[in-house]
């Protein structure tokens, strides 16, 4: 027993002293370089935003050799939780200088922590797709730099669709009703699932978001009032119910199950943002089998278009109290993300990053034919991006989507009527966001 305790204690003491030493080492190394300014960048996705930011830092450093600024790109898991904890604690010195924020979350963060965000009036928002403006501005001031777009597309198995007589031109610029007819034909012939969603149907916000935004509306009015009792919202969920009744939509329990169905050929179509294409392309055997078409539009809503969006993010500079670092962060964002087309060409190639920066689209990379799909996919994204109706995502989208989860499933399966569903959503939302 004694031996064991002593051994444990021994290990503990050794480790304790090494940790102390390394801890001291760390602090002294960061303070000794007081001449340089450190700009810390937080990014959420180790396969996308992180390499993207690292590319930006590398190119920036090459052009600004003696700037005296050191950039650190850090990945953070459970990004939103972490960012919110750090902001809520309110210790500005512990803030990162630059953060990425998903567009649906942006207004919530900007309104909750306004004073911790730095305005960035140097950014010329006219350089970016118009729909991004509502996202990165708050109370008339520009806070963020628009980054990638979630411009949507209908990805479909053109080999199988063609087998049942559905050609590319049949799918472009059509309505959902027309799509259902075509999809039924393919479903009947092939016996496979047609439209796959990444979560169960009643839980899935992606389809609702995409259809609703294509009508130029959102869950809320511009002034933030709940807008689910509108024609646009009703037509949106009616469309999904129609798809479900026709058996041409399938909700998978998670993204992986859907990917699996896509890879093994059980799922023939996906409506999702531009970011989904790399997943499809990751299966090399599928080369030439997938096509890209426009997203169908809702017939019953005036002004509905065949362009919409799912996802995408923007970059924000935080107010850390260190004037030098804050200034360096803003300059970095302006130089790289609002002014460097070469950078955007590189990240398009490396991470398939679809930017909303318009001047970048003049480069030849945007006009090339994608060998996997056999279409000018990037050009499709670039043109459609500018047609996405601008809406305000507001600050309570997540709350409302949680309310959807306990109500829409019953509507889709026919257990509740449209009107009672809307009523239930309205009253549940009211308790959910009750601000006392």
């Amino acid at each position, binding site marked *: *027993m*004694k031996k*064991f*305790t002593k051994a*444990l*204690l021994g*290990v*503990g003491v050794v*480790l*304790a002293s*090494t*940790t102390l030493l390394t*801890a001291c080492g*760390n*602090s002294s190394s960061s303070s000794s370089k007081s001449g340089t300014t450190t700009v810390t960048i937080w990014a*959420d*996705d*180790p*396969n*996308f935003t992180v390499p993207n930011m690292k590319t930006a830092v590398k190119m920036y450093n090459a052009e600004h050799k003696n700037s005296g600024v050191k950039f*650190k790109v*850090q*990945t*953070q*898991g*459970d*990004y939103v*939780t*972490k960012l919110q*904890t*750090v902001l*809520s*604690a*309110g*210790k500005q*010195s*512990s803030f*990162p200088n630059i953060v990425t924020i998903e567009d649906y979350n942006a207004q919530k963060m900007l309104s909750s922590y306004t004073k911790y965000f730095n305005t960035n009036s140097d950014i010329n928002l006219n350089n970016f797709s118009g729909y991004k403006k509502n996202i990165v501005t708050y109370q008339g001031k520009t806070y963020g730099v628009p980054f990638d777009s979630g411009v949507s597309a209908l990805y479909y198995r053109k080999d199988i669709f063609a087998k049942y007589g559905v050609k590319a031109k049949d799918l472009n610029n059509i309505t959902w009703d027309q799509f259902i007819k075509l999809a039924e034909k393919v479903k009947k012939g092939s016996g496979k699932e047609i439209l796959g969603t990444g979560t169960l149907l009643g839980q899935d916000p992606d389809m609702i978001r995409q259809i609703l935004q294509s009508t130029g509306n959102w869950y809320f009015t511009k002034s933030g009032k709940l807008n689910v009792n509108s024609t646009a919202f009703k037509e949106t969920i009616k469309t999904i119910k129609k798809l479900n009744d026709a058996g041409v939509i399938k909700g998978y329990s998670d*993204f*992986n199950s859907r*990917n*699996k169905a896509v*890879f*093994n050929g059980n799922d023939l179509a996906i409506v999702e943002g531009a*970011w*989904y294409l*790399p*997943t499809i392309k*990751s*299966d090399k055997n599928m080369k030439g089998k997938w096509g890209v078409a426009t997203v169908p539009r809702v017939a019953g809503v005036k002004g509905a278009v065949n362009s919409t969006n799912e*996802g995408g993010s923007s970059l924000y500079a935080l107010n850390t109290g260190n004037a030098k670092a804050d200034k360096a962060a803003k300059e970095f964002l302006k130089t790289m993300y609002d002014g460097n087309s070469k950078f955007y060409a590189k990240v398009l190639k490396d991470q398939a990053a679809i930017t909303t920066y318009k001047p970048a689209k003049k480069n030849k990379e945007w006009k090339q034919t994608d060998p996997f799909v056999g279409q000018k996919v990037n050009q499709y994204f670039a043109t459609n991006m500018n047609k996405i109706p601008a809406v305000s995502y507001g600050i309570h989208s997540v709350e409302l989507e949680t309310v959807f989860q306990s109500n829409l499933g019953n509507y889709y399966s026919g257990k509740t009527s449209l009107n009672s569903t809307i009523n239930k959503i309205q009253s549940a939302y009211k308790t959910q966001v009750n601000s006392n």
Partner: protein
Amino acid sequence: MTSKVSSFFKYLFIIICSFISVFPFIWMIIGSTNSSSQIIAGKMSFGDQFMNNWHHTFAQTAVVQDFWNSLKIAVLVTVLSIIVSALAAYGFQIYRSRGKNWIYSIFIASMMIPFSVLMIPLYRMMTNFGLVNNAWAVVLPSILSVFLIFFFHQSLETFPIDTIESARIDGANELKIFWSVVLPQLRSTFAAAAIYSFMGAWNNYMWPLIVLQSDDQKTLPLLISGLSATTNFSIDYGIIMVLIIISTIPIFVIFLFLQKYFVQGMTGANKG
């Protein structure tokens, strides 16, 4: 005859339970020999990607450094929390007084507070101490483990007080009694506490996530969750399987090591 039947059922029960316990691990090991897309497709046979997956893991992730970070934190927490908790439990149980009983009750009640309540004040405190992004920010709050105090307190409940009394009569001082009379008797308790404490620190996720920020401070659970958090682009499940295996090995080893003390305890060596 009946004893044969009962021992047959005993073994059958153990074998079934063990199989259920171990199955996901077998599956994990099989997974580490397959490619990411094969893992997603549910392939249930050994493949030839084992070396590839290990190679990718070491080439693409900072697994060695993160392993060291995890180990450093887990060992420190285990040693320090066991010392502090055993002392405290002994103090509460053997030197009972009204005041100490009160404090003990308050300790126990604090176990019921969800961590989410403490997270933001604690984070603020760590920034004041200048400990954000430092392993000590993870270690310090974990040293006080009410759970361990409770655990030691419970096992001291059946401790023969006479042994202590007679040591006192022999003139031993209180710390010496604790060290050489009480400690040796609690061998299996210490072993269980060590396993518990190490496991908790090793798998700790939420708090390290918040306070450890730069890549060179990260622990294994942060590495794993960071890699599997990606929803949009392809996740390399081969790497994840390898990382889960790597993160499993230390606790496996600790258990094997401390298991001996259970067995020793059972031979009756610690019965006075």
